[in-house]
């Protein structure tokens, strides 16, 4: 970019910051349409039951009620799901979790719709629910889904773990369990649908993937894709939860199509907590071996992810655990077996980290145990094994570039040194400790092919519009696209307009998930802008009679620096009868899919890495754990907007610490007991120290300006670091998340004497 202006690598303010701060951003709940009706969902109070009879007579008769729909009223396909169509829009014969949808009502006022919802009489034959995922794997267990309870099985085989364990001098082995958590975004799910005079349907929805919502709405209504338009409203957080669960869009669409009136369906917080997708709870068993000199020889693991009543993306989540389960380490012999299992609980789906935070807790705990047994410093031990340029991952992929994990560890060692003077507390019952967690995350879905597409329209005045299907869900991707386009086209940021989140005008880029937007869509935007610029420079080269390589595009002018000549794009376009230059950028990462039998392949073109350091204080008498200090080092390739990256990391630490210490859906016989933020305990600002963020930039040659991504890599090591810090403080190994005071207290009661060195 000319004139010493830089757009990339600068913490420019968010495009939408002013709108948000002034309260002018339009969220789903802000939408009102003329004649709009309100939809409410009738839900099962039972985790598993047969539907005997649904009586809608009373509900239909209530004044103000305009529609009461059951499964029979769905005009198109009745099942949805991103991988397998196993989730009914409305259940007709049986319900599979507490909160499963049975009927849909709509009325002219929300209160009336609530009354009508409660007036729908459903007779159930209550069945014994399948709750324990391990028991569910037994062939004798009642079947949640017709195809059996084992929804998927993913394997990884590298080397021979028997050989690896024979070569080990020390072997550690343990079991862990992690809990179901919710994304807990500020904005619950909601959608508004409207049918126009031609019968075309428009949906406004807070979503991570409007094009997928369009697919499912079109299928459910039985219409073509072109007759459905989905517009993403300002989205108050997603974290995976607003992808892969298109039900709210389908409900609004069904009601609008049926009544001809605009329809709004907005979930309450309770509905969101009870019924939308969650993070998979895991049961995990790990065995890790190392030589006396501290080299890892083998990792063997088996884990079961409880995917709840419907698969959503369970197969892919557990697959991610399998490919990432050996951690960012060189291990010659690896064996992983991962299962996604159906139970009668709320469906688990995508959530930031996608199967990696669960296994990171297990392997990072065991690496600390190994280090202790080998009498090695935990960071030194990891540095002996960590992936470096040229290393092979457990899937057999050779990493040639951008492997910054060793640097994150080295910087973590410095942070730990700075924290060490703060280990004293002044109270005998308060003990402090420092823990590290290391993790990695493949950028983009482990799916091939996967691609991102963007258009750039370069105008005569040098300004440009960017059209891309990847939506901004609060993480700042629209700002990032504008930075990339501005950098390529040599204009200030305010000369770029970004359009995303409208299926009518933007290409399908797949979902805003999998830490893929910066790398994939950022590349697509960059390529499109580069192509548009190239076309402009070719025109100018003809004009000047020189080579395009000798020209610069900046601020709407093409310059020949050597000859001090320039022409404005306006004049250039006029001369060649060009109105604007439109260019298409398509980017597909270079991956090879995993072999289903061996789990070998190159599932991701590049990986993000991180080492986090937590200083915790444990009250030995109550079991209460407090995070005192935190340092996070993430290799992001290149921070296109450093402040946005820091914000992502700070948020990840809050989310990950909640995962480690306080959050969790609590069940009683399959029913959620805490569907409220008064009892589902998210940590608050008062519970968290300032996070010290350190950015490591090991450039990825195929990334836009070297960038990779940060959304999930920043989340993955947090709980592991916190759990390791608890051990360092009080010598107890927490094997069951969350480490609420009572859990830690129970562990302290069975504590072995502390190692002699403390």
């Amino acid at each position, binding site marked *: 970019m000319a004139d010493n202006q830089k757009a990339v690598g600068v913490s420019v303010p968010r495009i939408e910051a002013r709108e948000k701060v002034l309260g002018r951003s339009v969220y789903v709940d802000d939408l009102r349409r003329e004649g709009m009706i309100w939809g409410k969902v009738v839900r099962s109070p039972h985790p598993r039951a047969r539907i005997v009879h649904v009586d809608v007579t009373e509900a239909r008769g209530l004044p103000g009620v305009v529609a009461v729909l059951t499964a029979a009223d769905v005009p198109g396909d009745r099942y949805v799901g991103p991988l397998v169509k196993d989730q009914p829009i409305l259940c007709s014969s049986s319900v599979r979790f507490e909160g499963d949808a049975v009927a849909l009502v709509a009325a002219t006022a*929300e209160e009336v719709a609530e009354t009508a919802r409660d007036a729908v009489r459903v007779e159930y034959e209550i069945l014994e629910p399948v709750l324990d995922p391990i028991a569910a794997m037994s062939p004798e267990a009642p079947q949640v889904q017709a195809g059996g309870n084992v929804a998927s099985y993913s394997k990884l085989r590298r080397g021979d773990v028997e050989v690896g364990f024979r070569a080990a001098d020390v072997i550690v082995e343990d079991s862990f369990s992690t809990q179901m958590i919710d994304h807990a975004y500020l904005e619950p799910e909601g959608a508004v649908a409207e049918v126009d005079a031609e019968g075309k349907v428009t949906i406004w929805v807070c979503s991570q993937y409007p094009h997928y919502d369009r697919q499912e709405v079109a299928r459910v209504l039985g219409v073509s894709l072109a007759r459905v338009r989905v517009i993403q409203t300002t989205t108050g957080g997603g974290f995976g939860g607003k992808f892969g669960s298109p039900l709210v869009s389908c409900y609004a669409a069904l009601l609008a199509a049926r009544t001809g009136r605009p329809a709004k369906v907005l979930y309450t917080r309770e509905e969101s907590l009870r019924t939308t997708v969650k993070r998979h709870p895991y049961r995990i068993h790990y065995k890790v071996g190392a030589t006396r000199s501290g080299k890892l020889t083998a990792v063997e693991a088996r884990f079961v992810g409880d995917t709840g009543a419907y698969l959503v993306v369970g197969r892919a989540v557990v697959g991610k655990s399998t490919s990432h389960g050996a951690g960012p380490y060189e291990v010659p012999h690896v064996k992983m077996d991962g299962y996604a299992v159906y139970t009668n609980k709320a469906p688990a789906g995508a959530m930031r980290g996608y199967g990696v935070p669960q296994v990171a807790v297990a392997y990072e705990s065991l690496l600390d145990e190994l280090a202790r047994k080998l009498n090695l410093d935990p960071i030194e031990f990891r540095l002996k094994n960590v992936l470096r340029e040229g290393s092979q991952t457990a899937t057999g992929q050779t990493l040639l570039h951008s492997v910054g994990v060793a640097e994150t560890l080295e910087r973590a060692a410095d942070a730990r040194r700075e924290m060490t003077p703060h280990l004293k507390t002044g109270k005998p019952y308060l003990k402090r400790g420092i823990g590290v967690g290391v993790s990695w995350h493949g950028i983009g879905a482990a799916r091939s092919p996967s691609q991102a597409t963007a258009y750039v329209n370069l105008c005569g005045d040098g300004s440009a519009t960017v059209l891309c299907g990847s939506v901004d869900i609060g993480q700042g991707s629209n700002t990032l696209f504008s930075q990339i386009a501005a950098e390529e086209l040599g204009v200030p940021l305010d000369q770029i307009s970004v359009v995303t989140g409208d299926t009518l005008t933007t290409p399908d880029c797949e979902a805003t998930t999998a830490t893929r937007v910066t790398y994939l869509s950022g590349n697509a935007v960059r390529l499109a802008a580069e192509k548009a610029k190239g076309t402009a420079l070719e025109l100018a080269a003809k004009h000047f009679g020189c080579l395009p390589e000798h020209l610069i595009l900046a601020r709407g002018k093409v310059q020949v620096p050597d000859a001090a000549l320039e022409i404005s794009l306006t004049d250039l376009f006029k001369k060649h009868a060009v109105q604007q230059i439109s260019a298409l950028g398509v980017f597909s990462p270079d991956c090879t899919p995993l072999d289903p039998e061996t789990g070998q392949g190159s599932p991701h073109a590049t990986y993000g890495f991180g080492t986090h350091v937590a200083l915790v204080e444990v009250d030995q008498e109550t079991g209460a754990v407090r995070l005192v200090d935190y340092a996070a080092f993430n290799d992001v390739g290149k921070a296109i907007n450093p402040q946005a990256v820091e914000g992502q990391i700070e948020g990840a630490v809050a989310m990950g610490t909640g995962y480690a210490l306080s959050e969790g859906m*609590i069940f009683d016989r399959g029913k959620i007991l805490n569907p409220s933020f008064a009892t589902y*305990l998210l940590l608050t600002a008062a519970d968290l120290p300032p996070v010290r963020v350190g950015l490591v930039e090991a450039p990825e040659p195929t990334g836009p300006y070297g960038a990779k991504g940060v959304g999930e890599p920043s989340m993955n090591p947090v709980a592991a670091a916190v759990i390791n810090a608890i051990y360092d403080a009080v010598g107890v190994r927490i094997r069951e998340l969350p480490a609420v005071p009572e859990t830690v207290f129970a562990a302290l009661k069975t504590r072995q004497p502390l190692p002699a060195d403390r």
Partner: protein
Amino acid sequence: MLSKLREFQYLRPRSLDEAEELIQQFGPDARILAGGTDLLVRMKERGLRARVVVDLKAIPGLAGIHAEPDGSLRIGALTTLGDIERSSHIRAHFPLLWQGASCVGSVQVRNRATVGGNLCNASPAADTAPPLLALGGEAILRGERGERRLLLEKFFTGPGRTAMGQEILVGISIPPNGAGSSLYLKHSPRRAMDIAIVSVAVRLDVDSQTGVCGKASIVLGAVAPVPLRARAAEQTLEGQRLTAQRLEDAARAAQEAAQPIGDLRGTAAYRREMVWVLTRRALVEASGAGEGSTFFQG
């Protein structure tokens, strides 16, 4: 799963007489509104159907902190917890109450919630209750037959239930605190926006010359149907020199007095253990046996 308030009649009396009349008129149908941080949540989310809501906030004189010349304190029922938190007088002379009020909810909640509401809601875990009981506070109640005073110890009769008839809590009166040392400890997983798993307020009058304990107050929160005064524990200390053993004995007596239930926040067994831990810790710190006295929140 209600998300919206149902219709109700909203009344805003301008005087206590008028309010009292409305309460006589509507009886149990009338719900009294102060800060609304409990009532409105229950009406919106917990299915409480209030037909009539009587808002006290237009009645003059119900809010305010009055330090009396004799060292006693009178607090209007509509005084917000935020006002208590910001009162340097309360912080200096009634630190126990300051600690209790300061750990309720968040800044926003404390700026709405009132001390009267916190008591009348009658949660066994109300954070102002153990401190006020330990301080020997009295409720000032206004009914048909005028005003009466009731020791706060006798105010609570069960979860959500009080000894009030068709009366209005107009204020709290607290006797002079003297030189007593005190501490309120709240054990909750979160440091804000959370309800105690267990809480304890202790107040000790220890003769600095002899080291003998005069009056002792030990009040437990969240471990019984009401905020619970642990009398046997107090008696263990009164008239005695406070040795470490005696403090432990008192904590054991408090633990025996507790009748906790298990719920989402903790099992009954854990709560019982925590009564011992917190009571002993509070006694050690308040009696000066600990290393510096600080407000602890687990």
